[in-house]
């Protein structure tokens, strides 16, 4: 290594290190605070590390809130939506990539416009629709509308466009029907996209706030995010509860990330995102 490239290396590594500390700090501070007893949280001078580490806040959160229920509700919604959205997006993306019909191009344009008019923007009419369809206050009201995602469809469309048409023609000549071709041949080779979209969908649903806010009113059907909202929305925030509850809400995502890290961070897998 030359002297010049060593200087460059030190300079760049220092910048990255400083930025990394800045990005890491908020989450670290949340984590450390959640292990401090309530009396220590607000007593000056603040200390970076807890004087005594306590799990009391977590016991308190678990006892005050029905976390098992919220986690189960959220998990059910998240898993069901993810499975369904992968299937629907894969078949829809496949059709958009491999069939040439005018109405399909029109439908693709329609899907494009959904990114311009997110649900947040039309919450009131969406609420009416949810009520009319009898989905109000039901977990299905969180699952069904979320199956249709433009990003998922784009990802699969992009991927299937790179699959050579010869492969299809060969299977057609062998007498396979279109359904067999899709399920037997195309879906298995789309595995990287299936995994990437599953992770994305899991994150979207687990962290979703707008749909549960619209659809759910019965506390027994709360998802984790709406349960958290009920703590943040109080006039006097119970920080002891809020900090530990926030950490609990992040844990499932951290677990997923640890297991599937290479699929997310392998930037090739996310290349389907650029359209």
């Amino acid at each position: 290594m030359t002297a010049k490239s060593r200087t460059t290396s030190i300079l760049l590594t220092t910048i990255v290190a400083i930025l990394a500390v800045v990005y890491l700090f908020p989450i670290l501070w949340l984590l450390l605070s959640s292990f401090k007893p309530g009396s220590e949280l607000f007593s000056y001078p603040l200390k970076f590390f807890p004087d005594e580490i306590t799990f009391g806040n977590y016991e308190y959160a678990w006892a005050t809130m029905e976390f098992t229920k919220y986690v189960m509700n959220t998990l059910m919604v998240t898993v069901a939506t993810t499975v369904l959205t992968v299937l629907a997006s894969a078949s829809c993306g496949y059709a958009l990539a491999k069939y040439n019909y005018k109405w399909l191009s029109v439908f693709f344009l329609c899907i494009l416009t959904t990114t311009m008019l997110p649900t947040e923007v039309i919450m009131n009419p969406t609420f009416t629709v949810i009520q009319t369809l009898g989905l109000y206050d039901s977990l299905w009201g969180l699952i069904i509308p979320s199956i249709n995602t433009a990003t998922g469809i784009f990802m699969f469309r992009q991927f299937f466009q790179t699959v050579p048409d010869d492969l299809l023609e060969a299977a057609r000549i062998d007498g396979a029907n279109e359904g067999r071709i899709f399920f037997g041949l195309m879906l298995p080779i789309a595995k990287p996209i299936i995994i990437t979209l599953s992770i994305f969908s899991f994150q979207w649903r687990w962290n979703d706030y707008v749909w549960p806010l619209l659809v759910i009113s019965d506390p027994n059907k709360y998802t984790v995010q709406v349960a958290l909202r009920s703590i943040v929305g109080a006039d006097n925030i119970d920080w002891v509860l809020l900090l530990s509850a926030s950490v609990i809400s992040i844990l499932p995502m951290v677990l997923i990330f640890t297991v599937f890290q290479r699929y997310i961070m392998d930037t090739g897998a996310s290349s389907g995102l650029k359209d």
Partner: protein
Amino acid sequence: MTTRRKDKNHKWALAFVIVNMVLFTLFFAWPGVLGVYYSFTDYTGISANFIGLENYVNLFQDKSFYKAMGRTFLYTVLSVPLLYVFSLLISVLLVNKYTKGKGIAKIIFFFPWLISPLVAGVIFRWMFGESFGFINYALGLIGIDPISWSSDGNMALMVVLFATIWGGTAFNMLIMMSALMNIPKSYYEAADIDGANGWQKFLNITLPSLKPTTFMVILLSVIHSMKEFAMVQSLTNGGPGTDNTFLVQYIYQTGFDQRNIGYASAVSMVLFVILLLFALINMKVEERSKI
């Protein structure tokens, strides 16, 4: 024979997209059309009377609407470029061969992606608490007076910006890093032969090669900031007062809390038109830049 097979494929194609088509109709087209209809009525949840353009006329004379719109624009104008610069800086550093510790750094920068906007709001509210937050405490240690992060509207907006950049970097970084890695190495090698320095290479190779990615990232970021809701709900709840009430929260408050659904729908339509216009301008500029 060929026509028969084609017809059959037609049915298969329909079978493949039918789920998304039905869902698109039910949860996008229907509420969309309903929203347009509501915006011309005085609907409050019980009965709707057609009142023509009255909602729109009132809207454009409503100070609170202009305030929410102005604040949303200000937030977007500030957050989109800042987020872009930080994401680009981090991505460039993380693909550079001279940077050490890229593996761990990537995980740290990506981590905020796992955290919901609501919890991100909680984290920043906790850090920037005026009398109990770490930031004011740390500032006090170096002799700076506490800053009114939550009682001053502009300071509160700054905290919202910090939280936005912190939470938004990861996703942009994923897209940008894969785009950066796709730039042919030969471009840089040719520049090396010509004796170009790092900055020149960045300006003349990296930035132009990133152009399509830049257009997409900017468009997605603008849509994202214009609909910001969850994070602000837990961070400032639109406050202090209504200083940082953005459009979606304004729609939520007028539509659900005050049950003024017709009026809220008119705001929705204005927001939709703004997003659509921006997307079209973005497309036009991208087209032109290709020539």
